[in-house]
């Protein structure tokens, strides 16, 4: 036994080293505040629980990590549920990574034993790639489904294809020879609703009929979407990216990536897009892909049992999501890296790359847009741009930044209102009203009636001679016989001027509606509306600059490049730059955004204009508030997200942040061998802390380890059920050797297996700068504060977030989810001290106790029938 333990201890030392070497150099350097001190000679003392440990208090980190993983071996039969997390709790990355190393080692050491073990280890090694392949396949297929169905349903608002009901407008007229140059999208097979119902295609009667049908379909799609969300999967609403960011940083929201969420999000996303609301499908697609990743990770024990490993799959899945959303595989990988991921090692980078590749491949083979490309808006022009155009590009960047800042402020204010006032009680009504207003205003204006991505496509395209839209109604001199690609700048015709008016109205409409739409309870993404706003503004600026250059081609800035009869301004390029700038202003992404936009449009020549605009918009936006829309929503919801991008510049010490404060009651601690089961249960019931430090004894106060509340309750429950002779007065023993007890006393309960013997500790004089860095980079959940080896207090992630919030002197702190969850979960022991039944984390109460909660439940039927 002893030799085996030693052997394992040696192993774990290696494992610890490899953990640190796996993390980046920077982490190692910054983590230097915690003294990691290997003193092997002390190990045995530590394990034996000898009092001499305390004399060397810096030991707790270095020395005991070796023994912490050790506990997994001591455990003959692991208690089910220990090491898992409650809903709305934060995971401990360090612990999860240790667990994975340990598992890996176990499989490796068994590998040589038999062919079966060998196969198992191979399966284990490959499971990472398998799971991302499956994720890529599934998200590509789902994206194809969403694209096709959304196109069809969007066109269903206008009319229907009589010859084949499943075709959208364009597919319906696919083989038709009756289309004319002027009326490109008309063909006899496609019937508008007016034609079908009142039998006339033209005139005010048919216009009104079409108007009514448009509103009717928009409303019914929106209503279906919101009621499906409400009945089956409330977590399917919204964009999902703020939550995914939080989940990837180590938060647990059970059911957020589940199968019902996946199904409902996929189905309702189509409905929401088709209802013509000012929203996009890109953000929700990331959520859909992450759901696929989560579901597939259940097939592989390596990922299903380890929360940290699962998050690596989710990082890859989010890359696949963006890859199919925009048809931008590289952009997806960079998006995952820049925006959503928290922990992104190189291995995950490659897996993300592969997942994005697979997903893009599947989507391409489904070919949803019928143009053999991944995206709807592919630009085909390659006209050069000139240096003086940087000025309007930067102007567009400024506009994008201003829009971003305005949008974030306004949307957050509106969402806060929804969150905190009574108005939030009527989600179905809200969706219906927003959809109605959108439909009523959108129909008369041809640019808002269009599907938003169609609109962007039209704004991005250049006016060749083949275009028939009013945006391209320039005055032509017909006798010029030039080749298609090289059309000189022309004076604008009446069509262009009227189009500009309509675009201005569309711009105002989109700006207002997007503020109110983002955050309603249907799946709603932000990328497409933001891009549309930018594209409209960009196109207007582009046409203005073009006309300026045409009429004033002798100005010194235009003289060099824009002579008479040259093609020097491309309004479509301005639309592209504007779209990137607005998206940059809202999300504050830079690198990934530029890559996404140029992959999206295929315009490789335009990287510099895009970079200039995106950078400007980020600067301008940052001047008004440093956080992007996703961080703002994270803060609004009070998720425990420790942003790695922010810097901590204050001079506070760990002692200023730690709990308990001076006025508080002393820290709730357990002693290692002289508490009874009843004592511990009382402590659990009386306090709401998520973990308790274990000390040697009340007299010495020296730290032994840390026990989590959840693990304690589960372990005690299972011991009461399974082990003989465990009663309320049994001693609980965290030490290795049970103390000698009087003969008649009941059997002691050994809980060493659930004790984390390597809690991170800092001294009370550690600067918070270092503590925050440790939390960010190692992904800790809590950290103990010691002084001379005596436990003084504890710092949790929540404390740090509160501290940051305090330092920022921000507006009223919103109640975080865990606050409510405290109330929701009753103590796991009933009043009679008997454990309540537990079913996979859903704790069942007798109906009588649930009564009051049921009453506050919004009545499903009342609100859906309206």
């Amino acid at each position, binding site marked *: 036994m002893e030799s085996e333990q030693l052997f394992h201890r040696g192993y774990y030392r290696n494992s610890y080293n490899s953990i640190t070497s796996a993390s980046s150099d920077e982490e190692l350097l910054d983590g230097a505040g915690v003294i990691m001190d290997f003193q092997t000679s002390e190990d045995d003392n530590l394990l034996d629980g000898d009092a001499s440990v305390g004399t060397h208090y810096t030991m707790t980190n270095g020395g005991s990590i070796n023994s912490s993983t050790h506990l997994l071996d001591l455990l003959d039969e692991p208690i089910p549920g220990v090491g898992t997390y409650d809903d709305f709790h934060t995971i401990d990355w360090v612990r999860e990574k240790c667990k994975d190393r340990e598992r890996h080692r176990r499989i490796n050491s068994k590998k040589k034993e038999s062919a079966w073990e060998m196969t198992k280890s191979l399966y284990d090694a490959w499971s990472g790639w398998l799971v991302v392949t499956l994720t890529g*396949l*599934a998200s590509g297929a789902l994206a194809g489904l969403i694209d*096709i169905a959304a196109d069809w349903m969007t066109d269903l608002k206008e009319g229907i294809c009589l010859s084949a009901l499943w075709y959208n407008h364009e597919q319906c007229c696919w*083989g038709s*020879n009756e289309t004319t140059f002027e009326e*490109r999208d008309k063909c006899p097979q496609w019937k508008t609703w007016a034609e079908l119902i009142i039998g006339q295609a033209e005139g005010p009667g048919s216009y009104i009929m079409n108007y009514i049908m448009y509103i009717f379909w928009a409303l019914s799609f929106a209503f279906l979407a919101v009621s499906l969300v*409400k009945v089956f999967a409330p977590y399917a609403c919204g964009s999902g990216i703020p939550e995914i960011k939080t989940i990837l940083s180590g938060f647990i929201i059970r059911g957020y990536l589940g199968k019902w969420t996946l*199904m409902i999000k996929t189905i309702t996303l189509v*409905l929401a897009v088709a209802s013509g609301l000012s929203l996009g499908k890109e953000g929700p697609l990331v959520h859909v892909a992450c759901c696929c990743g989560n579901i597939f990770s259940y097939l592989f024990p390596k990922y299903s049992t380890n929360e940290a490993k699962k998050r690596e799959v989710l990082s890859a899945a989010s890359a696949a999501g963006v890859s199919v959303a925009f048809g931008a595989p590289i952009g997806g990988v960079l998006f995952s890296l820049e925006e959503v991921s928290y922990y992104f090692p190189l291995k995950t980078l490659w897996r993300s790359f592969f997942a994005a590749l697979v997903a893009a491949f599947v989507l391409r083979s489904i070919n949803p847009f019928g143009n053999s490309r991944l995206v709807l808006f592919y630009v085909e022009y390659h006209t050069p741009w000139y240096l003086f155009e940087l000025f309007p590009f930067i102007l567009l960047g400024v506009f994008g930044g201003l829009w971003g800042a305005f949008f974030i402020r306004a949307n957050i204010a509106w969402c806060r209102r929804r969150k905190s006032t009574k108005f939030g009680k009527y989600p179905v009504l809200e969706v219906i009203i927003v959809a109605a207003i959108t439909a009523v205003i959108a129909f008369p204006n041809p640019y808002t009636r269009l599907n938003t991505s169609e609109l962007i496509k039209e704004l991005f395209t250049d006016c060749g001679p083949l275009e028939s839209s009013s945006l391209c109604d320039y005055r032509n001199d017909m006798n010029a016989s030039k080749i298609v690609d090289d059309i000189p700048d022309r004076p604008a015709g009446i069509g262009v001027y009227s189009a500009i008016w309509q675009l201005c109205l569309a711009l105002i409409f989109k700006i207002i509606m997007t503020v109110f739409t983002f955050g309603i309870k249907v799946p709603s993404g932000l990328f497409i509306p933001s891009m549309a706003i930018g594209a409209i503004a960009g196109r207007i600026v582009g046409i203005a600059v073009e006309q300026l250059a045409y009429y004033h081609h002798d100005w010194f800035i235009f003289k060099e490049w824009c002579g008479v009869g040259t093609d020097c301004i491309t309004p479509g390029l301005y639309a592209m730059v504007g779209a990137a700038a607005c998206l940059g202003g809202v999300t504050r992404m830079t690198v990934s955004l530029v890559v996404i936009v140029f992959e999206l449009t295929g315009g490789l020549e335009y990287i510099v204009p895009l970079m200039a605009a995106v950078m400007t918009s980020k600067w301008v936006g940052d001047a008004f508030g440093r956080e992007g829309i996703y961080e703002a929503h994270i803060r609004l919801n009070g998720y425990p997200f420790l942003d790695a991008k922010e810097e901590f510049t204050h001079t506070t010490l760990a002692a200023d942040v730690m709990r308990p404060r001076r006025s508080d009651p002393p820290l709730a601690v357990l002693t290692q061998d002289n508490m009874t089961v009843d004592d511990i249960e009382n402590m659990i019931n009386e306090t709401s802390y998520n973990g308790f430090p274990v000390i040697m004894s009340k007299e010495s106060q020296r730290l032994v380890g840390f026990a989590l509340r959840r693990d304690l309750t589960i372990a005690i429950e299972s011991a009461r059920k399974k082990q003989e002779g465990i009663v309320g007065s049994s001693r609980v023993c965290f030490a290795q050797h049970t103390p000698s007890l009087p003969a008649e006393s009941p059997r002691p309960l050994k809980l060493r297996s659930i004790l984390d013997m390597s809690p991170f500790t800092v001294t009370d004089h550690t600067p918070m700068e270092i503590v925050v860095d440790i939390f960010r980079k190692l992904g800790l959940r809590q950290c103990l504060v010691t002084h001379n080896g005596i436990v003084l207090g504890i710092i949790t992630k929540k404390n740090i977030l509160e501290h940051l919030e305090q330092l920022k002197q921000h507006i009223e702190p919103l109640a975080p989810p865990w606050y409510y969850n405290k109330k929701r979960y009753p103590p796991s022991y009933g009043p009679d001290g008997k454990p309540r039944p537990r079913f996979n984390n859903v704790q069942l109460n007798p109906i009588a106790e649930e009564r009051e909660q049921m009453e506050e439940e919004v009545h499903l039927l009342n609100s859906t029938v309206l």
Partner: protein
Amino acid sequence: MAAAAAAAGAAGTTAWSGLLRLCFVFGLSFLSLTGLLLVQLADSAKNFEDVRCKCICPPYKEHSGYIYNKNISQKDCDCLHVVEPMPVLGPDVEAYCLRCECKYEERSSVTIKVTIIIYLSILGLLLLYMVYLTLIEPILKRRLFGHSQLIQSDDDVGDHQPFANAHDVLARSRSRANVLNKVEYAQQRWKLQVQEQRKSVFDRHVVLS
């Protein structure tokens, strides 16, 4: 005793939910595989209608703009093959054709058809289930559990509460463990979860607001 039963129930549930989950995972992979297969099928039996070469010719001299559309293979997709009858004669053909833009496009009508059908059937099923849960189930429940339970259920859950009585069902499913009851049990468990989610999203606004 009760605890032991609960434990047995819990063990059964985990196995059951694991099975369900597995089914779902396989269903998902099956769906994606079918998608791939369909694409392959559609490619191999390329439908006659599924390719087109579309030429858009802008106005030229006295001729107005026109769109030509033809089923033709990719290598033949140019103005000379597609534009028939040629509106201009002799020397003008080249000038006319230079301005035309021809695009070869493919689609898969089978994929579109199948996708729309799959989508609509899932949507239809969900709608039916939704209607069942919100309207029919409460009425059925009322009829089944006579008058005494009616009052109680009115008391604690409100009359149309679709996700009520979970505990009842849980208790019964433990005593008679057959497949149907297990399905019902899983369903009730799911209902409880959705109820929790609904509370945190719509009532308390702690997530996703």
